[in-house]
């Protein structure tokens, strides 16, 4: 196990290096540059280019970037001058993570419960209700979901704050909007997985032994059925915690999502790289955890084998 983790960590470092390198060169291929103001004159542009070292060969710029990176310095944002990428991530991540954790807890718990209810009541009305919820969740785009929640609860009934983040009350609507899609997909996968498991011999054995249905569900089915959900959760956790552009925009949450998307369209090179690195580390960690949990949740799976 320790050897496996060590191997994975080495692989992760390598992956990160390739990722950084790939993104570093890919963003330079993108059309346009970070200095986007129609009023900027050619002279000013030239000054800015030498200020950021763009006049040097790309490989030299890459070397400088990697050197700074080793010292933990992600550089200054090119759009939000005077602010380092580290500062921006430090300021925005707590908001995204806070919202993300609430959404994940909600999505996971509700999703699993709905999936289990749905599977146990397969084919009857309760199942159908669960299917409808899941369908709504997966088929309403988040920008519509967010806007409807905001309009309904915030404006029409005035029950909850409309936008911004000034306390727990403010997180309810965005967290719900954020959770809905994940909730729905978790419930779908859980349902399918539960049905899959319910056909297994050990369930039949348990049932024929006279073990109560509730006990079968809790003791045997759920533990075995949760695996596919976990696989999906790896990347989902990473992306939900690092913020969502649309939901954060609708609810005016000062999170990371906006910077992740807009830095790309702004060609803010240092910001794109910083965000990619941050997200990449997060993602690789999540996937590693999922792979390790595989072994924990299912004794038959021995990771790293064959």
């Amino acid at each position, binding site marked *: 196990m320790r050897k496996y983790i060590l191997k994975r960590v080495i692989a992760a470092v390598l*992956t990160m290096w390739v990722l950084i390198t790939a993104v570093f060169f890919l963003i330079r*291929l993108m*059309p346009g540059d970070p200095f986007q103001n129609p009023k900027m004159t050619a002279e000013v542009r030239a000054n800015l280019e030498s200020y950021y070292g763009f006049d040097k060969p790309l490989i030299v710029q890459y070397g400088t970037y990697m050197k700074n990176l080793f010292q933990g310095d992600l550089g200054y944002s090119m759009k939000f001058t005077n602010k380092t990428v580290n500062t921006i991530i430090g300021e925005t991540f707590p908001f995204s993570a806070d919202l993300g954790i609430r959404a994940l807890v909600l999505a996971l718990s509700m999703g699993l419960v709905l999936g289990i209810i749905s599977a146990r009541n397969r084919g009857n009305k309760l199942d159908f209700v669960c299917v409808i919820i899941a369908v709504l969740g997966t088929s309403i785009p988040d920008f*519509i979901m967010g806007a409807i929640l905001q309009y309904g609860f915030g404006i029409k009934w005035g029950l909850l704050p409309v936008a911004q983040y000034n306390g727990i009350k403010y997180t309810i609507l965005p967290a719900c909007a954020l959770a809905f899609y994940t909730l729905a997909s978790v419930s779908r996968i859980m349902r399918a997985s539960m049905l899959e498991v319910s056909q297994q011999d050990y369930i039949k054995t348990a049932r024929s032994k006279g073990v109560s249905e509730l006990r079968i569900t809790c003791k045997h089915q759920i533990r075995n059925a949760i695996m596919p959900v976990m696989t999906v959760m790896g990347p989902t956790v990473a992306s939900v915690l690092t913020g969502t552009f649309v939901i954060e925009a609708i609810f005016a949450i000062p999170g990371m999502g906006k910077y992740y998307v807009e830095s790309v369209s702004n060609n803010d090179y240092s910001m794109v790289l910083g965000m990619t690195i941050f997200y990449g580390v997060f993602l690789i960690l999540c996937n590693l955890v999922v792979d390790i949990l595989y072994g924990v949740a299912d004794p038959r*799976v021995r990771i790293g084998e064959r």
Partner: protein
Amino acid sequence: MAELNKEAFIIRGKDTTRMENISRPSLSFWQDAWRRLRKNRSAFIGLCIVVLYALLAIFAPMFSQYTQSQMDINARSAFISSAHWLGTDSTGRDLWVRIWMGARVSLSIGLIAAVVNMCVGAVIGGLCGYYGGKLDMIVMRIVDLLYGIPSLIITILVMMVLGKGITPLIVAMCVVGWIGTCRFVRGEVYRIKEQDFVLAARVLGVPDFKIIIKHMIPNILGMLVTNLCMAIPGAIFQEAFLSYIGLGITPPDCSWGVICKEGIQYLRYSPHQVLIPAFFVCTTMLALNLLGNGLRDAVDPRLRGTE
């Protein structure tokens, strides 16, 4: 309950000619699946809706007096009427035509992207899960890598190289789209390959190829179908997101994502502009989900022959 007595029963005797008959018609896997699908009422409704939408997408715009880009300054944001069956949008374009023109784009993007992603992902994920080891390690790191690169960069670059339009959009989606399925299938295969029936097959000397075809695929097909039904809306949404940030379909073409996006600003003032396209997205997804559930049950090898 009525009393039982001997008179109620008739002795039918044995019919020796039928004794050797096989009670269940000999059906191939797919014949059986189709038979079971037809018997599943909700799945059949789902199938009907999907077919209906597909037919409308093909034919509805042909029989309308409007085109998808024709604007009417006097009928802006008009509500449902006999002239405009589903109302108009903020520039007076007929939503009935736009919905079905959009359906062409959205449904084809959804289907093509989802199916391509599914196939590629399933094959790669299956191989990784089954063979594990170095192959798995390398492919999974590539997967991490592709997850890590902001998809927007990939989309913009693909569009820069291939231009704008439906094909580049699908290509852009497929470059990274398969990795979700890949991880998922890999996980499933990991789990199944340790199960007794696979072990038994292996002990009996069944070649790997045959194990994958005969045992692995039928066993994960159910989950795969569920996944596919999620992947179609996923692809439609991704297109909607790209439209949200302005990188989707180029006008005059439109898609459901585009129509939703254009309508969302009017949520409070003329809600039909966003609720109608949202309704079609939802019902399509509902239909696909019902169909998916039915398919899942239909292809489940353990449910074979049962009603």
